[in-house]
Each structure stands twice: as structure tokens, then as C-alpha cells.
């Protein structure tokens, strides 16, 4: 495979395109509402109405507007349209509409702020390319960035470009990606590994699933470029077992890339070799933590270990290992082909580029959005999301899943970047944004997250194993109106202890939902408290009095 071959594939595929394209979303969300049947019906209907010569029906990945699904997009005479809530029996009407017939199916507005305010880098191909055909990806310029890196750049130059871009890890902690790559590249060792963390465990976040389902080659290409930059020849893609569709599409993608020589030995006739294996998770939230994930890749129980040594020095089987999130890898091709300086021009001073958020909960427009860093939260929630449904009022926005916090409505003007969110006691996290309206009880939400952390604690270190259980019981006690001010004080003390003494990120961040709801919604806790029968200080005298009366 050489550049000419790549261009030939692209040209051949482009020339086989038809005038009109019906894009049928086949992502997990739309598939659950019979999108596969819809696509079959559309194909049959195109044949039946004799439009085969002009119309193609393409399987595409996620278009983002999952709440209005199943979606069908259309490209006709250079304009793009969208149909929402498409049912299998709507196929004749949609195909008829291509000829100008009236159509009863709900049209989406591509100029709606939900779409108009987005900026696509990671999700650029979502809803456009067929995730199960590598030709489709090549036709829009796929694998050219890899070619550019392999033939025109030194590994150190690639690292430099990524450093220049200012890209930070999209998995949650926001560690500078270029710095991480540089460390792994400098670590001595003949064998190095690249690991892609697709164990998207945060409830309420599904951007990694969407990227893997809609554009698997983008992630593979990003991993290959990373491998070249750090000197690795083996990669692992760790994907949750809960995402079966993503796993099959990745398997297909790897097979196709190998067939074309874009993975394997001697890629683009250079000495560079890179193989990728998929590792399927088995339902353990803690495996999103990098050292636990590596244990899981090695086929062991997914328990974390203390750092240092960091994976960059001693990771998989003791070798230097680069671990990045799916979304981080998905940014790489754009950075390599368009330059780090271009990427650094987007976003804020310390948070560069774009971020994909999963906008869910009590909000009108559910779905995935990709926005430049620094956009005010209010724009996301009110303009793009359309505010709370059924006349409700937004009470808070939860970001960062069980490790994050709740941002109350009065702080909606906060720009969304790593630092601002941390200042408010929340975190960027993987990008889940769950909107809550005034019918939501914040203490209940804190309990919900604590139950999650309690269940998911791996049990290795005691503060997390025992602390989360005690905190859960205290929250339960508060919610059942049996707690006193003293219990609340104990809860706060435990938050501090678990946060500061746990081994890994799970335990260290487990108290965050409690701390953040206590910070902004303390009243809701206090309203549930009972007067202390033993007096405010709980001294012996007060106790005696209660006993005698």
C-alpha cells in the first residue's frame, strides 16, 4: 500500500457514489428503535420506486440527536436534510419525498442551535461515513494523516506537534497528552505498548461508544500514529462488554485495515509495524482507572496499584505503556494533518480544542454535542439543549459522573473548561452532562452515586471499601429522616478521609457528589435532619435528661 493506492481507492469509491444519499443512522440508540428494519425498508422502497440509479442508502454512525431518533439524513443537490422519529413503515413516504411528494414524517432543522453551535473534530465523520466500510473512510481522506506522519515526520516531530496542540487527556483528569507521549517515547525499553481506554463506565456518558460505533478507523489511525511516535508495535483496545455493537464494528475495522496493509507489518512500505488487539471488559467500573485497566488487559482482576511507577515507565508486563482515552486518540489525525497550531487556536488558554458532551437527563434535546472548550454552560443547556421539558426549571447540571459534582443553575454562565469546572467542585470527566430539574432531590442523587461507588469499589484499599459503605448508610439515614446534625458532621468527616486516603481515582473522587451537593444544596440536607435528642454537643448531662424524662 502506497499513497497512490490509497488515492485510487478513494477515487474509485467516490465515483461509485450516487446523486442522492439517504443516510440511515445505525448506532445503538437508533438501532433500539428498529433502525435496521428502516434501512432495509428504505433499500427495498428505492428499488420499488425505480430510483436505484440515483439513490443510495448508506449505513452511517451516530448523528448526535439521539433523543429524536431514529434519524435518517439526506444529501440532495448539495443540501442536507434530516428526518426524525423515523419508523420502518415511513420508508415509502421518505423515498417519495425525494421526488418532491409530500411527506408526513417530522423534519429536523439542520440550522437548529443544537447543530449550528457545534464544531466537529472528533465527530466530523459521525453520521457521514459507513463505519463498516474502510473505503468510505479512505474516501474522505482517511489514513492520509498516518501516511504523512510515517513518511514525512520523525517520531519526535509527531510528539512535538501533539504537545503544540495543547491537547489534554479526554478521559477525565486532563493530563497534557503531548507530555505523556514524550515520557513514553523517552522511557527506555525495546517493547512498548499503546492502550486505548474504551471502558467508558461513567453513567450518563456515551461519546466513546458513539465514536467507536460511528468511526472506528479514526481511533485506529490515531492509535497507529501514537505507536509510531512512541515506538510501539502493539496496541490494545479495551472496550466494555456493554457495547457489543462497538466491538463488532471494531473487529470489522481491524480486519479491513489489515487486509489493506494499513495495520500489520510494513505499513505504507516503511519499517513501521503495528498490530491492534481488542480486549473486552467484563463490567467493572474501576477498570477505567489506568492501572486497573492494565491488570485487566493482562487477564487479571482489575484492581489498581499505587503510582509511581506510572504506566509511561512501567505498564503492561512491566513495559512502557501509553494509555489514552478514545476521544483523545480521535483528535490525533486532525492534529497531525492540520497542525498543532491550528488545534491550539480553538478553545481557551489552558483547555484547547473541542470536547464531546453527552447531554441527557431532564432536557428537551438529548444527544451528543461537540463544542469548543470555553463555551458557557448556559449556551449548551438552554440554547442547544432547549432547557427543561414540560415547563420545568433547571436546578443543576451534573458533570463528570460519579467522580464529578453538581453545578447549580446560578453558575450556568461558567465557561466549560478543565479549570473552571474544578473550581466549582466538579470535573470535566469523560463528558457526561446530566441535567436535573427542580423535581430532583439532590440528597437522593448523592445517595445514587454513593451506591454506585460502593458497588464498584474493588475492595483493595480500606478507605474506599469501608468508607463508601458507611457514607451510603449515612445518606440513607438522612433520607429516611432519622439522622441528626451529628450524622451530617460524620458524613463530612468521612468525605474528607475517603478523598485523601484512597488508593486510586475511584475512591479519591467517590465523595465528590456528596461534597458538591453539600456545598450548593446544604439546605436540602438540613431540612431532612432531626433535632438531636442528646443536645447539640451530646454531653453526658443532656443524655441523662433525655433518659429520665
Amino acid at each position: 500500500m502506497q499513497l497512490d493506492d490509497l488515492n485510487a481507492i478513494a477515487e474509485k469509491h467516490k465515483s461509485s457514489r450516487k446523486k442522492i444519499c439517504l443516510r440511515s443512522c445505525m448506532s445503538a440508540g437508533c438501532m433500539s428503535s428498529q433502525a435496521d428494519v428502516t434501512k432495509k425498508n428504505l433499500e427495498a422502497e428505492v428499488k420499488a420506486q425505480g430510483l436505484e440509479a440515483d439513490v443510495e442508502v448508506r449505513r452511517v454512525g451516530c448523528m448526535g440527536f439521539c433523543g429524536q431518533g431514529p434519524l435518517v439524513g439526506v444529501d440532495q443537490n448539495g443540501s442536507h436534510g434530516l428526518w426524525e422519529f423515523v419508523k420502518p413503515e415511513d420508508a415509502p413516504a421518505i423515498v417519495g419525498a425525494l421526488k418532491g411528494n409530500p411527506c408526513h414524517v417530522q423534519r429536523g432543522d439542520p440550522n437548529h442551535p443544537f447543530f449550528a453551535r457545534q464544531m466537529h473534530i472528533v465527530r466530523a465523520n459521525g453520521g457521514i461515513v459507513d463505519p463498516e466500510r474502510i473505503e468510505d473512510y479512505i474516501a474522505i481522506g482517511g489514513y492520509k494523516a498516518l501516511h504523512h506522519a510515517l513518511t514525512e515526520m520523525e517520531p519526535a516531530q509527531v510528539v512535538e506537534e501533539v504537545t503544540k496542540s495543547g491537547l489534554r487527556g479526554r478521559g477525565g483528569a486532563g493530563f497534557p497528552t503531548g507530555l505523556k507521549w514524550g515520557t513514553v517515547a523517552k522511557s527506555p525499553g525495546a517493547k512498548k505498548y499503546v492502550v486505548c481506554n474504551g471502558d467508558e463506565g461513567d453513567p450518563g456518558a456515551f461519546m466513546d461508544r458513539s465514536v467507536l460505533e460511528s468511526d472506528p478507523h479514526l481511533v485506529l489511525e490515531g492509535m497507529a500514529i501514537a505507536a509510531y511516535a512512541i515506538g510501539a508495535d502493539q496496541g490494545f483496545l479495551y472496550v466494555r462488554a456493554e457495547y457489543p455493537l462497538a466491538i463488532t464494528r471494531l473487529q470489522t475495522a481491524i480486519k479491513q485495515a489489515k487486509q489493506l496493509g494499513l495495520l500489520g507489518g510494513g505499513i505504507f512500505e516503511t519499517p513501521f509495524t503495528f498490530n491492534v488487539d481488542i480486549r473486552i471488559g467484563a463490567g467493572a467500573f474501576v477498570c477505567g482507572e489506568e492501572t486497573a485497566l492494565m491488570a485487566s488487559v493482562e487477564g487479571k482482576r482489575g484492581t489498581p496499584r499505587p503510582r509511581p511507577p506510572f504506566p509511561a515507565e512501567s505498564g503492561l508486563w512491566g513495559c512502557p505503556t501509553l494509555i489514552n482515552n478514545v476521544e483523545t486518540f480521535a483528535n490525533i489525525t486532525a492534529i497531525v494533518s492540520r497542525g498543532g497550531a491550528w488545534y491550539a487556536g480553538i478553545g481557551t488558554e489552558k483547555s484547547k480544542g473541542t470536547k464531546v458532551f453527552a447531554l441527557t437527563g431532564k432536557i428537551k434535546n438529548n444527544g451528543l454535542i461537540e463544542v469548543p472548550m470555553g463555551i458557557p454552560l448556559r449556551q449548551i443547556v438552554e440554547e442547544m439543549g432547549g432547557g427543561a421539558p414540560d415547563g420545568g426549571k433547571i436546578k443543576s447540571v451534573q458533570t463528570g459522573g460519579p467522580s464529578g459534582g453538581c453545578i447549580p443553575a446560578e453558575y450556568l454562565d461558567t465557561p466549560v473548561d478543565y479549570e473552571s469546572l474544578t473550581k466549582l467542585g466538579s470535573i470535566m470527566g469523560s463528558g457526561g452532562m446530566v441535567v436535573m430539574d427542580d423535581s430532583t432531590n439532590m440528597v437522593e442523587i448523592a445517595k445514587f452515586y454513593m451506591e454506585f461507588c460502593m458497588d464498584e469499589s474493588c475492595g483493595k484499599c480500606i478507605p474506599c471499601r469501608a468508607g463508601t459503605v458507611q457514607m451510603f448508610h449515612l445518606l440513607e439515614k438522612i433520607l429516611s429522616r432519622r439522622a441528626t446534625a451529628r450524622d451530617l458532621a460524620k458524613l463530612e468527616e468521612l468525605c474528607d478521609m475517603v478523598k485523601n486516603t484512597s488508593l486510586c481515582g475511584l475512591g479519591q473522587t467517590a465523595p465528590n457528589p456528596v461534597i458538591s451537593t453539600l456545598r450548593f444544596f446544604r439546605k436540602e440536607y438540613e431540612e431532612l435532619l432531626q433535632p438531636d435528642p442528646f443536645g447539640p454537643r451530646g454531653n453526658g448531662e443532656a443524655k441523662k435528661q433525655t433518659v429520665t424524662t
Partner: protein
Amino acid sequence: MVPTLLNEKQKAVDRVMQHASGDKRFKILEVHMKKHQFKHDALIEVLHKAQELFGYLEDDLLLFVAYKLKLPPSRVYGVATFYHFFTLKPQGKHTCVVCLGTACYVKGSAKVLAAIEERTRIKSGETTPDNQLSLLTARCIGACGIAPAVTYDGQVAPKQTPQAALEHIGKWI
């Protein structure tokens, strides 16, 4: 003491091998292990395959995997019990997984779960006495855009209400 222990172990291996000899699924599993070159790090992949073939991981099956991969049974058992995805008990004929992720929770999946629990008289994680239905919960299936979501026999159903869920499982119980 040592010879007795060895004997016990040998007996267990013999029993498992005899059990395995008459069952084609063990052959398929072994081919799968061979594909991974009997590497220790493929343990989770092998257990996934085993559960897919047998529905659940019984003791003899775990011993078989341990023996073939040359791993201590404690390690195999440890991994099988660590991950939520693996089950060591037989499952019902049908499964119903209620997602309790944040988005689904905010939109009322707890009510859906409560309705199902009341109707089937089992708690999540249990199977009905007639083995028709296993009720499970998920932490997040990534279908937050269509919350609350429930998975019936592997098929995700969007925007569930207690009524819709009861209607769905009504066919099974």
C-alpha cells in the same frame, strides 16, 4: 498430607475431563483457547466465550479453563467473581436488564424497576422460581439519549415506562 492433596486434585481434574469429553461445547472452548495460544492474559476472553457457550460459569467449567490455561483455579475463580458480567449461577430463559445509569435514573428507571420487581416478586439479580426470567440491572448501557432504557433478551428498548415494561415481560411470565 501432600499426597492426599495431590490425589484430590487429580480426582477433580479427572472428573472435569470426563465431564468435558462428552460435550461438544468444551471442544469449541478449547479451540478458542488455542486461538489465543493458551496465553494467560486471554483468561477474560476465554471466560466470555465460556459464558456465551454455557450461559453461566459452573465450577467444573472454571476448573477446565484453569487446567487448560495452566492457571491456578483460585486465579480463574478470582477473575470470574470479580467482574459483574460473569455469572456463576444459571440464568432464566429470558433476561431483562434495567439500566440504572444517571440519565435513566433521573428519568425514572427506578420506578420501572420497582414495577417489575413487584410484578415478578423477585429482586434484581434474581431469577423467577420457574426459571423464565432473570432480572438484572446495568450501571449504564450508553443509551442515555433514549433514557430510560431496558434491555429485553439483548434488545434495547427506548423510553420505557412501568406500563411498557410490564407489558413486555408479561409475555414471559
